[in-house]
Every structure is written in structure tokens, then in C-alpha cells.
């Protein structure tokens, strides 16, 4: 059986499993938003959104949609019990002040020193999009990245140095990909988990950054989760 990479939702599921009780978490656009759906029910977690929501709840059911109750990605959401709102200056004082326990972000590239590139792919005909990414990456206590291990063209995303414009320096603490869970340490990248059937050499072949493997490196598993037929 050939190795079975995780799909996007399984990556989100795996990251959600590392969320612990009472954390204040910010979820970036794309894959990270799905993390909310998989936080273990016994965990009591507040999700902060840059637009000033403290305690984002599940997406609003159609009959409860309110155009003023939105997250930073313009999704119509609900508010969890104990949630509240602040203005943008408070929201970013919270982010920049280091009050976010974990920012879970998408990325284009991560370097072995923890540098992150996630805001500008230099696409032709498209303007830049910074949003709150630089604040979150630079100032959250931990930064977890969720991304495919390689690009659609098969090029590695875990690099010696980022090639795309940087979001923040030395900020990424952990990377969740479809193939592995990797800590970014002072000594470089340390593989904690890897999917079944993949060899260390297989992973190295898909990674530019040097990889160390934890002595207790485990198998990366996730339950089956079907992807919806979503337009991307």
C-alpha cells in the first residue's frame, strides 16, 4: 500500500489535537479555519478573530445569519458562551501584546530557522494581502503552520531559506503537513510524526531543509474525513 497523505481536513484535525484547555487561538484563512471543527469537545478554547471577536463560535446556521456577526474572513459566525467583542485597536493590542497562545496559519514556505512566508505569492494581476498575518506571526506565543508538504508542482515548501516575501522571522514553532508533523527547534527541523509507509529518505526527498527525526518519532494518523466538494 502506498503512503496515504492526509487531506486538508485531516491536517486540520491533527493540529486541533494539540490544542489544550483554555488556549486563546487565532485561525488564519483557509485550512486553519477548519481546525475549529475538530477541537476535542472536552477542551474549552477561545478563538480570537482579528476583527475583534473573542470567542468565535461555529458558522451561523442559515436562520441565524447576522451581517454584523462575522469573523476576519467575512464568514457569518456565532459567538461562543463567554465571548465578547473589542475594536481593532484592542484586537491588535491583544495580538501584538503576546496574548494569543497559538496562531494557526497557512503558509507558502517555512525555513529551517522558523522564517515564514505566507502573504505574497507574487501572483501576476493580484495585489498584496497582508491583513493580520504579520502581527500574528511575529507576536503570537506559538505559531503553527498548516500546509501541503510540497507545492502542486512538487517543489518543497520546507526550505533552507524562504524565497517568497517574508511574513516574520523565526516565528514558526510547528508545521503540520499532509506527510508529517515537524517542530522547528533551535537546531532546525525535528520530525515528530510521519505518515505510515513513508521512509525518512522519502520525506527528505520532499524537503529542502535538513530534517532531524525525534527518537520517538511516531506514525501520523487521522480518521477518515471526506472533503466537501468545495469551490477553491
Amino acid at each position, binding site marked *: 500500500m502506498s503512503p496515504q497523505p492526509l487531506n486538508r481536513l485531516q491536517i486540520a484535525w491533527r493540529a486541533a489535537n494539540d490544542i489544550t484547555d483554555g488556549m486563546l487561538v487565532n485561525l488564519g484563512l483557509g485550512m486553519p479555519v477548519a481546525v475549529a471543527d475538530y477541537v476535542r469537545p472536552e477542551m474549552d478554547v477561545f478563538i480570537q478573530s482579528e476583527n475583534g471577536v473573542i470567542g468565535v463560535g461555529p458558522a451561523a446556521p442559515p436562520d441565524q445569519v447576522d451581517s454584523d456577526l462575522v469573523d476576519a474572513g467575512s464568514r457569518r459566525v456565532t459567538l461562543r458562551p463567554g465571548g465578547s467583542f473589542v475594536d481593532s485597536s484592542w484586537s491588535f493590542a491583544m495580538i501584538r501584546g503576546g496574548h494569543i497562545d497559538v496562531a494557526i496559519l497557512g503558509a507558502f514556505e517555512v525555513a529551517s530557522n522558523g522564517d515564514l512566508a505566507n502573504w505574497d505569492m507574487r501572483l501576476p494581476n493580484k495585489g498584496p494581502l497582508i491583513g493580520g498575518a504579520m502581527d500574528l506571526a511575529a507576536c503570537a506565543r506559538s505559531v503553527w503552520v498548516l500546509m501541503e508538504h510540497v507545492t502542486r508542482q512538487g517543489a518543497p515548501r520546507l526550505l533552507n531559506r524562504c524565497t517568497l516575501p517574508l511574513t516574520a*522571522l523565526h516565528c514558526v514553532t510547528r508545521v503540520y503537513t499532509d506527510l508529517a508533523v515537524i517542530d522547528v527547534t533551535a537546531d532546525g527541523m525535528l520530525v515528530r510524526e510521519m505518515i505510515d509507509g513513508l521512509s525518512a529518505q522519502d520525506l527528505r526527498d520532499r524537503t529542502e531543509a535538513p530534517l532531524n527525526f525525534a527518537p520517538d518519532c511516531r506514525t501520523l494518523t487521522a480518521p477518515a474525513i471526506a472533503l466537501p466538494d468545495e469551490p477553491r
Partner: protein
Amino acid sequence: MSIDKRVNTAADAIADVRDGAVVLISGFGGAGFPNELIRALRDRAPKDMTLVVNSATHRYSLTHELLEAGLVRKMICTTARGRGKEPTAFERLWMAGKIELECIPQGTFTERIRAGGAGIPAFYTPVGLGTEIAQGKEMRRIKDRDYILEYALSGDLALIRADTADHYGNLSFRYAQMNFGPVMATAATLVVAEVRAVLDEPIPHDRVGLSGVYVDRVVEASK
């Protein structure tokens, strides 16, 4: 009732804006866009404006009408990328070299505006360090960490959206509607608020989201 900041129409509320104005516009994530004021501004058609707005073109906002009308010389924002493959009104102008862009981190955006309203001319921040954002900016080491210097940002006119207003100009907001409204109101010479409803009675003190001392005019949205 000596203080009365109520104005009948959006057109009246922005009638005295001039060419070259720096205009701050609230709204984020779909909430808090003062769209009737934006449309009135388009109709008033001051030229060479600088817009200070989170998103250069957001699908729930009418800023694209100002852009399409050719009224904007410069955009200061945190997001200048449209969602679809088709370029947005902003992206078309930008690619054609017809508009100046200053795209900055969102926390720096809001903090610069707060500073503009709070008498802080400049501050240090770790955000953007080591990135393109830091290029040409002053760096400083404080307690073993490097920071970049950012300057206050303020404007001639702020257009903000709230839920209710009273004749003192006090505003209340719903849910995530406030976002940039309060800080923008502190940082502009003239502040105009568009609201769902102007109340006859003062807003109770514990429901005031922004004090009327920051607001010059309030206008009720027509819908």
C-alpha cells in the same frame, strides 16, 4: 438640546469634503461599512483622495465605486488582493500604475490610526521586522530585541458605520461592527457616522460604544 449633530442626508454630511482629502473608512469582515456615505462621496466626487481603509476593495463595501470614478490617488490598506481570478477595481488601477499603494500590517494600520488620535507621533513595533515592510524604516534595539519605528496616521474625514446614534453624536455598535470605527473617529478632523437609527433619547451611558465628543455628524441610513 443645544448640541445636535443630526444631518438629514449623507450628501449634506459630506458636502464640504475637498479635493486631496485623506479619508478614513471603517469596515472589516463584512461589518461596519458606511456604504451610503461612500456613495455620497462618490457623487460629491472630490479628486485625488487618499483612502485609509482596511481592504482596498471588499465585496461588501462600495469603495470600488470611488476607485472606478477615478477619485483616488493613493490607497493605504492592509489588503489589496481580490478574491476571484478577475482583478478588482483596485487591482486594475494599480497594475496600470494609476494609483499609489501603501499596504501595511493590520495591527500597524490600526495602531498608527490610534496614535494619530491619541497624540502619539510615533511608536516602535516588532511587526514587519525582517520583511519588506521594514524597508527604509528606522530600526532600533530595545532590550535585546529589534523593532521598527512607525508614525501616526490621521486624516481629514472619517466615515464610519454604527448601529444607533443620539443627537450628541454618541454611537452604539452591534457585535463585530465597531472594528476600525472608534479609532478612525479619533484621528480625523471631521467625523461622520452613518447609523441604522438615530434615537430621540440619549444612548444610555453603558451602551455608548464611542462618545459623541469624537463625532461631528450623524446620518440615518435610508435602508
